[in-house]
C-alpha cells in the first residue's frame, strides 16, 4: 500500500523519466516473471475475497447458449439502433434502385447494425497485484523517483502489454492497474477515453444523471472510459442496472447493447421478477421464457433448473414460466397476475382472429 502511494507522489516526475525498452533478452525474462507473479497474486487475493464472489461470471456470460438467449431478448428496434445521431453534416446521397436492390441494401444494413448490439463483457472486478517481482535492496536509493518500464513493441494489445515499476527502495513490481491504463492511453490512445477519469462518474453527478434517466449515455460513456473488469465500470453499471430495475425503466435499454448485461446481472443476482413482469405486461411471452431459461442456465444448481429440465415440452412458454413461479420466484403474486393477464389477452386475441376468419 505504502509503495503505491509513493508512486503517486512521484508520478509526475516518473512520467518524465519513462524508459522505453524493446524486446531485449533481459526484458523477455521480465515479461515471463510478470506473468508468473500475476498468477501468484491472484491466488493470494482469492483467500481474502468472500465465498459467494468466488464464482466468475464471465465464462457463463460467453457460453454460446447464454449469448443467444441474451441477444434474443435484446430485440432489434431499427429506430433505436440506427436512429438519428450527431455527426458532421454531409450531403445526402441519392440512388435509383430496383426493389430487389433496395431489399438487398436493407438486409445488408441490418447485418451491419447487428454489430452495434455487441454486449460489453460482464466480468468480476480485477484484483490488485500484490507480490513484487523481485526485491533488490542493493538498488535502493538509485534515484529520487520511481521508474516505469513499458513494453511498446509493435502489435502488443493493451491488455497483454506489460508495465512494471522499479521503486525507489529497489523493488520491481507489476504496475498498479491505474498506472497501466494511463500508460496505455499515452502509447496507444483510444478515442473517447480520458487520462483523468471524468467527474461524471463521481457519486453526486452519477446520482443526478440517473435521476434524469440518462441511463444509456452513462453506460455508453462507461464503456468508452473503462475496461469491463475495472471496479469503477462495475460499480457504475451495477448502479445504473439497480436504478433501472427499481424504476422499471427496462424500455430505456431495450434494443441497446446494454440490455443483455442488464438481464444477466438480474439473473446472476436472482432478481429477475421485475423484468419478468415487465415482459409479461408487454405480451413478450417468448422473451419471458428466455429469461427464465437464462436464470436456470446461470444457476444450474437451483430447483428451477432441475424442474425445467424435467418438463415434458420445453417449448411451451407458459409452462416454463409457471415452473419458475412454483420454484424460485420471490414475488409470486405480481408475476402470477401478469401471467394470467397475458394469457387472457392472448386468448381473446385468438378468438377475435378466429371470428374474423
Amino acid at each position: 500500500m505504502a509503495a503505491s502511494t509513493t508512486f503517486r507522489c512521484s508520478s509526475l516526475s516518473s512520467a518524465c523519466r519513462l524508459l522505453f525498452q524493446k524486446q531485449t533478452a533481459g526484458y523477455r525474462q521480465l515479461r515471463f516473471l510478470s506473468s508468473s507473479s500475476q498468477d501468484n497474486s491472484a491466488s493470494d487475493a482469492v483467500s481474502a475475497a468472500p465465498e459467494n464472489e468466488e464464482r466468475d461470471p464471465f465464462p457463463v456470460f460467453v457460453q454460446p447458449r447464454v449469448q443467444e438467449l441474451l441477444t434474443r431478448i435484446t430485440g432489434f428496434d431499427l429506430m433505436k439502433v440506427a436512429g438519428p445521431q450527431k455527426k458532421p453534416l454531409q450531403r445526402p446521397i441519392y440512388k435509383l434502385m430496383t426493389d430487389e436492390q433496395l431489399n438487398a441494401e436493407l438486409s445488408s444494413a441490418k447485418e451491419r447494425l447487428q454489430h452495434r448490439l455487441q454486449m460489453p463483457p460482464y466480468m468480476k472486478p480485477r484484483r490488485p497485484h500484490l507480490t513484487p517481482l523481485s526485491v533488490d535492496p542493493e538498488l535502493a536509493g538509485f534515484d529520487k523517483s520511481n521508474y516505469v518500464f513499458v513494453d511498446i513493441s509493435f502489435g502488443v494489445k493493451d491488455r497483454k502489454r506489460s508495465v512494471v515499476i522499479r521503486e525507489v527502495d529497489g523493488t520491481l513490481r507489476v504496475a498498479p492497474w491505474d498506472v497501466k491504463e494511463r500508460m496505455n492511453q499515452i502509447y496507444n490512445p483510444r478515442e473517447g477515453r480520458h487520462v483523468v477519469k471524468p467527474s461524471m462518474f463521481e457519486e453526486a453527478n452519477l446520482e443526478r444523471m440517473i435521476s434524469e434517466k440518462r441511463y444509456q449515455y452513462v453506460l455508453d460513456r462507461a464503456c468508452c472510459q473503462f475496461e469491463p473488469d475495472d471496479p469503477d465500470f462495475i460499480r457504475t453499471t451495477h448502479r445504473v442496472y439497480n436504478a433501472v430495475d427499481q424504476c422499471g425503466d427496462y424500455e430505456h435499454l431495450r434494443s441497446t447493447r446494454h440490455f443483455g448485461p442488464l438481464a444477466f446481472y438480474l439473473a446472476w443476482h436472482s432478481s429477475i421478477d421485475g423484468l419478468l413482469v415487465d415482459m409479461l405486461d408487454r405480451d413478450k411471452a417468448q422473451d419471458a421464457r428466455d429469461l427464465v431459461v437464462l436464470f436456470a442456465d446461470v444457476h444450474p444448481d437451483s430447483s428451477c433448473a432441475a424442474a425445467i429440465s424435467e418438463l415434458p415440452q420445453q417449448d411451451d412458454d407458459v409452462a416454463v414460466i409457471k415452473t419458475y413461479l412454483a420454484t424460485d420466484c420471490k414475488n409470486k403474486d405480481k408475476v402470477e397476475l401478469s401471467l394470467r393477464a397475458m394469457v387472457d389477452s392472448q386468448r381473446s386475441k385468438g378468438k377475435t382472429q378466429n371470428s374474423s376468419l
Partner: protein
Amino acid sequence: MAASIPMINTIMKRILILGSKHNTGQCRTTNLTWCRTLMQSQRRYQEESEAQENSEEDLTPKRKIVDPETSIRYVHSPEFVKGYGDKPVWFHYRRNFKGKIPPPTRENCIRQGEIATASPCPICRDEYLVLDAKNIKLLEQFICPHSGEIFDSMKTGLCQTQQKALTVSVMRAQDQGLLEMKLPFRTYDYEDYKS
C-alpha cells in the same frame, strides 16, 4: 444622395439601440420588436456629465459583475424571453465591419473593466449572460443540434475571449455529464478477456 439617406437612418437606429442613456428596458425603434436595451454598464468615452457622475462614486464598478447562479436564473426568466424571443442570443447580432469580407472577430470587447467598443459581442453586450458549465441553456444555444459541434465565432460573432470561455465551459459541462457529447462505438474482442 438618395441612397445615403436610408443608410444614415439605419446608423442612427443602431446608435439609438446601443447607446441609449436611460436604460428603461424599452426599445425606442418601433419596427424591431425583439430588441431591448441590453447594456446597462458604462461605456468608454461616454458623455462628460455621466463620466463625472461616475468619478464621484468611485466604489461602484464600471461593469456589473454577475455570478453564474444569477445568470442561470436570468436565462430561465420571462425577461430573457422578452429580450431575445425564442431565438439564440446571437441570432439578431450583426457585426460591424468595413468591406465585403468579414475579418476574424475582435480579441475582446471589454478592456480595463468597461466596454470598449460600439458593438460588443452577444455575450459581452448583456452582462447577465455568463458562460459557465452549469449554464446549460445558454451553452446549448452555441452548439449545433445536428452535429454537436460548437458554432464558429464567425457565425455567432463572439469575441475571442468569450469563444475561449465558451469552449472551456462546454468541455467542463461534458466532463460533468451536464452536456452530452458524441461517443465513439467501442468494439470488444471477447478473446482478450478470456484467461
